């Protein structure tokens, strides 16, 4: 006790402690201010995020362990039965593979096509502005409008068939939407038509960021156009391409509106995606518990993909921006 007092008395004369003393009451106030500021600025975004992103996910997970028709009380607990049923349903598996096909086609066909067009449109050519607008226009249309327009054009003896006839390719005409072997590729063409403009705009923006001096220097060193594209442009376009792939793959996994309107997942489930399967079972069959299980599975697939992609593919691109800011 005594020794303590001595120490206290001793420290009381110490200038360092004296200097700190008046600051002490101010510290909580500053912290409080910080908390209030954070609350004020974060609350709107945070409450939206909690209410419309996190809460629905949690609720879906909760509903997914019940057999529930969406109207009555949640009282028929079935555990993981809904998940077992989903994963063992060949229709759902088919839907998953259709999503996978869309992913592969997007990255394998749509990307090279968009890249080629972007490189062309990046050159000085007459009517470049007009061409850029034309390619970008479909992206501005809503997915529903796109679907209805193409649904009408793809009817037998419709606009598309007539165009084939006129250019002398009438023999190649197919039942674009009615043939279960072809429908998914027809849909991919429509999706490409709609979204290629976005890829081109994104890639053009990336191309603007590549200094012209690099290509000039390469040209002086005797590099051919192909060589400088292959070894300068493409590597420097890498970040843009990687972010496009990310958006595209997530989009493919969640594909819904266009397919629902054009085919309802048919004929005979040939164009179902996980999302059309989800709506078909959740809403049309009033199996909301089951639909929620499908939603959770879909969410998990997208989420795992997103995390892995960020971790392994986008790491270099986001290192400077994201990681440093967090620290």
């Amino acid at each position, binding site marked *: 006790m005594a020794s303590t007092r001595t120490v206290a008395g001793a420290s009381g004369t110490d200038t360092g402690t004296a200097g700190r003393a008046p600051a002490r009451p101010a510290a909580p106030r500053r912290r409080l201010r910080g908390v209030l500021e954070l609350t004020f600025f974060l609350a709107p975004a945070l409450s939206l995020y909690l209410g419309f992103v996190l809460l629905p996910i949690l609720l879906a997970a909760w509903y997914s362990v019940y057999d529930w028709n969406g109207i*009555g009380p949640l009282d028929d607990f079935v555990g993981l039965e809904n998940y077992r049923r989903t994963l063992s349903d060949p229709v759902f598996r088919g839907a998953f593979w259709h999503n996978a096909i869309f992913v592969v086609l997007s990255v394998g066909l749509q990307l090279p096509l968009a890249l080629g067009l972007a490189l062309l449109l990046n050159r000085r050519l007459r009517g470049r502005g007009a061409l850029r607008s034309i390619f970008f226009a479909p992206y501005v249309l809503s997915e529903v409008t796109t679907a209805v327009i193409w649904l009408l054009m793809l*009817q037998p003896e419709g606009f598309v068939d007539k165009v084939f006839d006129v250019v002398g390719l009438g023999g190649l005409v197919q039942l674009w939407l009615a043939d279960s072997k072809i429908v998914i590729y027809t849909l991919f063409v429509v999706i490409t038509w709609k979204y290629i403009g976005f890829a081109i705009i994104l890639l053009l923006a990336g191309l603007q960021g590549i200094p012209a001096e690099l290509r000039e220097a390469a040209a002086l060193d005797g590099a051919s156009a192909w060589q400088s594209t292959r070894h300068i442009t493409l590597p420097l376009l890498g970040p843009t391409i990687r972010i496009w792939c990310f958006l595209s793959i997530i989009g493919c996994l969640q594909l819904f509106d266009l397919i629902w309107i054009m085919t309802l997942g048919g004929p005979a489930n040939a164009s179902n995606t996980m999302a059309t399967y989800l*709506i078909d079972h959740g809403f049309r069959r009033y199996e909301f518990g089951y639909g929620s299980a499908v939603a959770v599975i879909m969410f998990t697939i997208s989420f795992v993909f997103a995390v892995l992609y960020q971790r392994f593919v986008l790491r270099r691109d986001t290192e400077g921006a994201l990681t440093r800011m967090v620290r």
Partner: protein
Amino acid sequence: MISVRKGSALAVGAMLALTACGGGDSGDDRAGDGTVTLTWWHNGNTDPLKGFWQQVADDYTASHPKVKFKIEAIQNEQFQTKIPVALQSNDPPDIFQQWGGGNMADQVKSGKVMDLTEASSSWIDSLGGSAAGWQTDGKQYGVPYSLGIVGFWYNKELFQKAGITAAPATVDELLATIDKLKAAGVTPIAIGSKDRWPDAFFWEYFALRNCSTDTLKSSLSGLKMDDPCFLKAGQDAQKLVAAQPFQKGFLATPAQQGAGSSAGLLANGKAAMELQGHWNPGVMSALTTDKNLNSKLGWFPFPTVSGGSGAADVQLGGGDGFSCSYKAPPECVDFLKYVVSPEVQSKFGALNVGLPVAKGSENSVSDPTLKGVLDARGASSYVQTYFDIAVPTAVGQALNDAIANLFAGKATPDQVVKAFTDAAAQQ
């Protein structure tokens, strides 16, 4: 391909979250002066029905000044998603569209629909047998105002062109008719297979013609299709599909959207027949510029199957009605009584968009073809509700999907029966 929206994966979750949060104040809409406001959701979102229901509400308010209405006309397909969400909330509509059957039974099981048995006992008989489709366990939970049956709508001119003089009465005659139409270069039957339920009409009619009425009733109420007549129905449907009577690419054809839809093909003379409900003239008139369409149209019931146990006068049908939700004030029932009174029903019949059910209102239907449908309904020994409405929704949709697969050549008759049985086992 890119979709920046993240929403769709969570669509169902979000909808359900809204359900959980939705609805503030509970219950009675009665104001201090005793005025009560009835919220009314119906599917007449286009004229003439939209204006008609408004008039009915206005007339009722004129004679009952204390009852006011808040009407929302909702597009038919949207009811599927709106009704469960609304019934789950604390503030459901007082009066809402009701198709009866298993869908209604789901709502009843959850205690969301008002039992009208007692309140309607004095007048429900005026609707005859029609009211039965809106009963569950012997209790009345809804009131029909229109009941129609499905049959073949056909283009008389195209039949004439192909040299067909009489409507086919048996399936064999139907197949002969198909051959004649094909020979004349006419697409015999238009079908909207993309929507699946038009396929189901065929399969269900084959079941109606092959199965006895008792088998139908017990199979659908017991959710068991163990009678071989259901297999036969699938085989008959397969035989019809094999005759290739449908338009090119029928698997992707919508039923009602655009001139290329099945209704549009019939309306524009591009196909000779379509198996559809009583609403078809109304749908078709919006899809063609042909002002004389109605005079070209004829109607005949689904033909009989040789050796089938089903009666020729059993028809497939269904109708529209209204229910009161569990929180509705008693005025709701009185208003429904007014809706199905012969007076209002006669005005409804005169619109020629549906077939009124109240006794004494039959003569109000003036369109001769529609009158023919009404006569067939009156002469029928039994009207079987569409299977997908009669059974729980999940079972009905599973059946429709399997039938659609059969039409696409991707399912066998026994797989259709199995799909029904499997879905029923989940119930």
